[in-house]
């Protein structure tokens, strides 16, 4: 097996598909947040692999760096919302987070 850009992008697409399937299939907010992390990580892998294919600049790695920072902020705020929802509903199911429903 010869690993090239296509191999890494294929792996990235597979990981993104797993994350997307998990986000859509699970009804546990914790698991959904973890699926979002998997999807963000797969995009990071694609960015770094494409940067490796064009090694004259570091744009892809800089992008991945910023994605990591934004993902950390997203995880903290998402978990804070989860705690708040759990305090109101005593449940972490995303179906029960219907506080804005009239």
């Amino acid at each position, binding site marked *: *097996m*010869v*690993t*090239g*850009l*296509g191999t*890494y*992008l*294929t792996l990235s*697409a*597979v*990981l*993104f*598909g*797993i*994350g997307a*399937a*998990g986000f*859509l*299939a699970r009804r*546990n907010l*914790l*698991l959904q947040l*973890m*699926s979002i*992390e*998997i999807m963000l*990580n797969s995009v*990071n892998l694609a960015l*770094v692999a494409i940067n*490796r294919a064009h*090694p*004259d*600049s*570091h*744009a892809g*790695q*800089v992008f*991945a*760096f*910023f994605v*990591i*920072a*934004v993902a*950390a*902020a*997203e*995880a*903290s*705020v998402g*978990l*804070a*919302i*989860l*705690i*708040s929802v*759990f*305090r109101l509903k005593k449940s*972490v*199911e995303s179906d029960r987070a219907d506080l804005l429903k009239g």
Partner: protein
Amino acid sequence: MMSFGGQLLFAIAGMVAVLAAVLTVTQKSPLRAAVALLVHVVSLAGLYLTLHAHLLAAIQLLVYAGAVVVLFVFVIMLIGPGALDVKPDQRGLMVKLFGGATVLMIAGTIAAQIGQAAALFPALPGCPEGEAMTQAGECGQFGGVDALSNAIYVGAAIPFELVSVLLLVAIVGAIAVARGHTDAEKKAKDPRELDPRPRSADPNATDPSGMTPAE
């Protein structure tokens, strides 16, 4: 062209990453899912190493394995047994099959298309044969601390500062959202509960509510 060690690391880390991602998504217990996510993150750091992104591999380990997964575990600890799925999945078999087939089809199509791009990685720039480790400066620095920090601080200084503002806002927002009312604040809404002592026992006490003390 990657070395044999790089290809071996790619094969192992890639398989572990896929397996750990599947486990993360399918586990019933959130704590087991968090541990699987940890394995996934560590194997992705290994994949970054095969791509000469050494600094990003370290950042990945620090931020994800060190902070995000620990944050997940802390929240699971705070929530306790309520973090488990209470009711089983209520959707029908057809919906599950259709959803799974759709995701599999989209991801499979993308993977099959881009997998045909069999472009090999070019050699790293500025490095003569066999001098990648010895020469300083630009050569052999792809993905290293010098080159990547130069790219961030020179090419993307303002976005970098904006990221710090974003993280500050995220911290303040997370505290504001997750923090409930303390006991003191709950009592402060009811002025009669401010001072549990009988007022007649303290002649110097001023009555904040203006009510006459009960005899």
